[in-house]
């Protein structure tokens, strides 16, 4: 690292609050998507894919843990408490990851769109001036490559497979695509982070993501829907599905007193 790198003690108060919001958004997307993927364990169409999706879910869960630990460095919060004791209104996940898992095509098309977003975002985050974030990004970017490789292959296989697999993949893409702009919407105060080089500019991330995914979708025989012109909803406005997901995910933890160690 250069000697100008920022640490938790050299951030100003506004940067600190904005970074907490950004880390929470990163973590919540991975945590919620991880849960949706984990719903397939024991139900995937073939054993290999059961294993693959469980691996991906485990990776995303691990990454959520890394982001929440970085948040903990800033505000003293505990990752497990944040995961299991927050209600839907306190979550900052995007709608794309909250939607029910749907069929196999829906799950894989969503995972592809998200993996590509995460891979580009994390790749650019490697240059962060906030040293702990840059170090985590350099670690995680190497793992994400395996996700994208896997889900890109599945999109191609489903898109070019049978009429039925193409129809289902196209239906999934038509439903998912309008939710993608929210991934690139800044959190409150994010511009101060971008100005300080702490996080990449999401508009730039989107400019790399769009041609990457549209080219692959087109190669896979899928039609890219029109992007909605209305600005995306803030990450405080969730789908109706999040509360139900959290009820299940948090059910066991909430039967115990806070701080219980197993």
């Amino acid at each position, binding site marked *: *690292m250069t000697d100008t790198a920022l640490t938790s003690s050299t951030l100003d108060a506004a940067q600190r609050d904005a970074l907490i919001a950004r880390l929470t958004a990163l973590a919540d997307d991975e945590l919620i998507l991880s849960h949706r993927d984990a719903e397939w364990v024991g139900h995937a169409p073939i054993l*290999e894919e059961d*294993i*693959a999706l*469980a*691996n*991906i879910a*485990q*990776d*995303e*869960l*691990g*990454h959520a*843990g*890394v982001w929440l630990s970085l948040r903990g460095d800033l505000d003293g919060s505990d990752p497990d408490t944040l995961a299991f004791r927050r209600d839907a209104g306190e979550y900052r996940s995007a709608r794309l990851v909250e939607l029910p898992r749907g069929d196999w095509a829906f799950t894989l098309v969503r995972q592809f769109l998200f993996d*590509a977003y995460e*891979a*580009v975002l994390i*790749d650019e985050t490697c240059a962060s001036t906030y040293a*702990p974030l*840059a*170090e*985590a990004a*350099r*670690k*995680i970017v*190497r*793992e994400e*490559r*395996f996700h*994208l*490789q*896997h889900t*890109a*292959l599945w999109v191609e296989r489903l898109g070019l497979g049978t009429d039925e697999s193409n129809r289902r993949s196209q239906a999934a893409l038509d439903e998912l695509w309008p939710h993608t702009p929210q991934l690139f919407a800044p959190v409150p105060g994010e511009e101060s982070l971008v100005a300080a080089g702490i996080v990449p500019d999401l508009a730039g991330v989107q400019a790399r993501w769009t041609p*990457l995914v549209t080219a*692959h979708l087109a190669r896979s025989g899928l039609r890219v829907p029109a992007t909605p012109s209305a600005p995306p909803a803030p990450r405080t406005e969730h789908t109706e599905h999040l509360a139900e997901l959290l009820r299940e995910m948090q059910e066991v933890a909430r039967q115990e007193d806070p701080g219980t160690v197993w």
Partner: protein
Amino acid sequence: MVNAAAGATERVWAALSHVADPEIPVVNVVEMGIVRDVRFEGEDRVVVDMTPTFSACPALHVIRDAIADAVRAEGLIPEVRTVMSPPWTTDWITEEARGKLERYGIAPPAPTGEAGMGLIQLTADVPRCPRCGSFDTGIRNTFGSTLCKTIHVCHACSEPFEAFKSL
């Protein structure tokens, strides 16, 4: 600080070389490149830097505890720190450990060759079958029984096998 007795650091490294990787017990945490640094702070306090292989690897807690136990067994007080930078790479796995992996039935990782690494890379390196040595192998799954492995099949001897991901 170098006030520890001569050879004390080497002794800790030697002790750690007996700590097996919990998921692949034929190799140890030193030759896997997981232990990054050992240093004394005072007479009997030892700081061990370890680095996660995969950030979601569930064996990390087991490894951390096993490292601390090994230091304690030397009569020293351990502090195990997790360092993320530089990120762990399979290029740090020693030649000897690669041989052990292959004899154990896991194809060792190919050199990472970071330069040509694209975000969407559809053709992975072809591993050699650890059983018969043939390169006529096909990938069955880019994910395996643990986060660090992929599943392949050898077309020459028909044997399925696991390979270590190049990371």
